[in-house]
């Protein structure tokens, strides 16, 4: 490296009056070193796990730490928004009772959630679960919403040997390869309409169905399952269509459905804008079947249709009842500021929290071998008579319950006898 013999003014401030080039320990070197030191210090600050202060609840030694992510931005916000509060409410209620008793330690430990925002993005979720494992050192994982995100995030389970409880993730892809570190209590998507099928199995008055599904991982599987189920019940599916996600104009679809003249129209779509578009246009164009089924009818869709939502049959992951579990569930929802029917997946969360508690009690320890084993061996009852288990592939058999929209809210059509007497056909009235 050549230094020129004539001093070159470099930025004006490093040349001494004598005209010599700056020496090794001259002011230039000191400034450079100082800058480097400052930058390294900042880098160190960022790296130190004090940056884990982004978590919503700090874990302290002697807790049971549950690591989770929730979508606080992106497409899944409307579905899981209040679940952070729901989780905290449950943790509070458990801790108020003294925590969860773990016989291996001879005492009860309190529960803490450490939750991050996964931005509805699978790669972000994966990174965050990695962080939860290595930086926050959680004992268990509670998965995020949706199969896509769970598929990515659960990759963090095996390397760290942390059991991963899947809440909403019931697509076959998640369970296609064996993995002892993850499990779910819920049936696969194609079984989602099982309880509704029980209702229609006993309900007279319908002969033909049309099924419309939004082109997306979950909806396609669920709609296929429903079609198969209807076939077995002796119904005829006279129209089936999978329609792209970005469709805004359903007029052609409505026309084709009208031509097929079904008694019942079933719509399987997780995206409110899509569902709203379809129903508004169906209404405008005079599609008025005897029965309308929309598997997912969140609040915005109900409100968008106003009085037109009346008597639409839907599915919800919880139902109304009076057992102690029902009451606990309602109380947790109130604490989170929501009503159970407003967020269908609240039911999934509640059951999953109970499963976690039951697993830990049975394992009696936080040991990384015992807990997954206990997770798979789940066997408990909620809501009086509902039995929850995990099968050999790692998922369960829990499916949602039928509901019907009355006066702008969802009303349970379960248990079956209640549903059969409460059910009313839409009779083409918008």
């Amino acid at each position, binding site marked *: *490296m*050549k230094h020129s013999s004539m001093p070159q003014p*470099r*930025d004006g401030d490093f040349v001494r009056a004598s005209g010599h080039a700056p020496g090794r320990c001259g002011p*230039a*070197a000191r400034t*450079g*070193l100082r*800058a*480097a030191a400052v*930058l*390294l210090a900042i880098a160190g600050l*960022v*790296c130190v*796990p004090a*940056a884990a*202060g*982004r978590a*919503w609840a700090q874990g302290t030694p002697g807790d049971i730490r549950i690591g989770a992510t929730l979508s*606080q*931005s992106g497409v899944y916000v409307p579905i899981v928004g209040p679940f952070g509060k729901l989780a905290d409410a449950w943790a509070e209620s458990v801790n108020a009772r003294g925590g969860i008793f773990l016989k291996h330690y001879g005492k009860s430990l309190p529960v803490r959630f450490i939750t991050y*925002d996964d931005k509805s993005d*699978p*790669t972000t979720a*994966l*990174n965050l679960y*990695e*962080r939860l494992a*290595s*930086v926050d*050192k959680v004992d268990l994982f509670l998965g995020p919403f949706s199969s*896509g995100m769970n*598929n*990515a995030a659960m*990759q963090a389970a*095996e*390397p760290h040997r942390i059991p991963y409880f899947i809440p909403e993730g019931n*697509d076959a*892809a998640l369970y*296609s*390869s064996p993995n002892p570190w993850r499990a779910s209590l819920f049936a696969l998507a194609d079984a989602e309409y099982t309880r509704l099928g029980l209702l229609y199995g006993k309900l007279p008055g319908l002969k033909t169905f049309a099924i419309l599904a939004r*082109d*997306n*991982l979950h909806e*396609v*599987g669920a709609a296929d399952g429903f079609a198969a189920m209807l076939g077995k019940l002796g119904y005829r599916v006279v129209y089936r269509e999978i329609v*792209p*996600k970005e469709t805004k104009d359903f007029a052609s679809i409505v026309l084709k459905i009208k031509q097929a003249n079904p008694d019942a129209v079933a719509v399987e779509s997780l995206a409110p804008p899509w569902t709203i578009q379809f129903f508004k246009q169906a209404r405008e164009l005079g599609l008025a079947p005897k029965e309308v089924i929309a598997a997912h009818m969140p609040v915005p869709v109900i409100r968008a249709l106003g009085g037109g939502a009346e008597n639409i049959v839907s599915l919800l992951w919880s139902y109304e009842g009076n057992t102690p579990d029902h009451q606990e569930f309602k109380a947790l929802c109130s604490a989170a500021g929501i009503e159970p029917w407003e967020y269908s997946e609240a039911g999934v969360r509640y059951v999953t929290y109970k499963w976690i508690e039951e697993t830990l009690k049975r394992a009696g320890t936080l040991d990384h071998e015992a807990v997954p084993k206990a997770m798979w061996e789940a066997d408990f009852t909620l809501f009086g008579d509902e039995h929850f288990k995990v099968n050999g592939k790692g998922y369960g058999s829990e499916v949602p319950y039928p509901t019907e929209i009355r006066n702008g809210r969802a009303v349970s059509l379960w248990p079956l006898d209640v549903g059969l007497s409460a059910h009313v056909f839409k009779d083409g009235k918008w």
Partner: protein
Amino acid sequence: MRRHPPTLRALLLPGAVVLGVLALPWLPADSRIYYMQELTMGFLYAGLAQSYDLVGGLLGYINLGHIVFFGLGAYTTGILFNLGVPLIGGLAASILVAGAFAALISIPFFRLRGAYFSLATFALVKLMEHVTDNLRDLTGGSSGLKILAGNRVLPMYYVTLALLAAAMATSWAVGRSRLGLGMKSIREDEGVARDFGVPTTRIKAQALVISTVLPAALGGLFTWYINFINPGEVFGLKLALQPVAMAMLGGSGLVIGPLIGTAFLYGLEELIWTRFEFLQGAMLGLVVVLVGLFMPGGIARLKGVERALERLGLKEDDS
């Protein structure tokens, strides 16, 4: 402008950073895998931004469809992997498919100028997304494509880093070559260049094909790493716009520009989400606005940054 060779002193900090990055997987820190994963995605974005800038910055055609090659690579490798083809073969095929596609579309697409070109290439992204959704039997459609999982964090880290370095080397080499000269002349005034006998059609096609190698490889690697892709993700809006924004933010047309833009934006994102629970997107948006308003030409063309680059010997002829 004469380039000053960097002094040892000036190389101290960047040298430490590079060493740190290379050594990260071996450091005895619990959180190293987390940072490796974060950096891997950073290298990926930087690589996309760098390869985009070959056409976007050097040639002057804002190619909003750059991500098409990423998606093509992702699906090609994924489909072949499921048929038993090893990763290397899959990546090679990805690069060939993307390159062939680029060669095919370059003649008709490069007849378009300015916003027409940009939006036509963007339309290609949406088109590919929808076609991939519909070719259910080949690609799995909207349900996505899944490959056999595996713990690939360590190799992915080094490979994406190496690809980023390769992308930057490519940009540098092309910039100094005859091809680069032709590209810059097209950027400045295509009509005049053509009148002077510059083979514009051939140069544009070459530039596009070269720019597709990296995204195709990165796409294939992405599938291998994440095990599960779907059309909405690999042909998505975020992946399409982010490299463009990062390149413009950092300084489109400079070799170091996209890297600076990516490092800046990515680092900022990391900083923001650890400090704020809400409105993180809005803050990022604000930063983008401020850069747009007050830093014409991007961060790398700021006076202070230019001087720092000069001291590192990285300042280049910005014509």
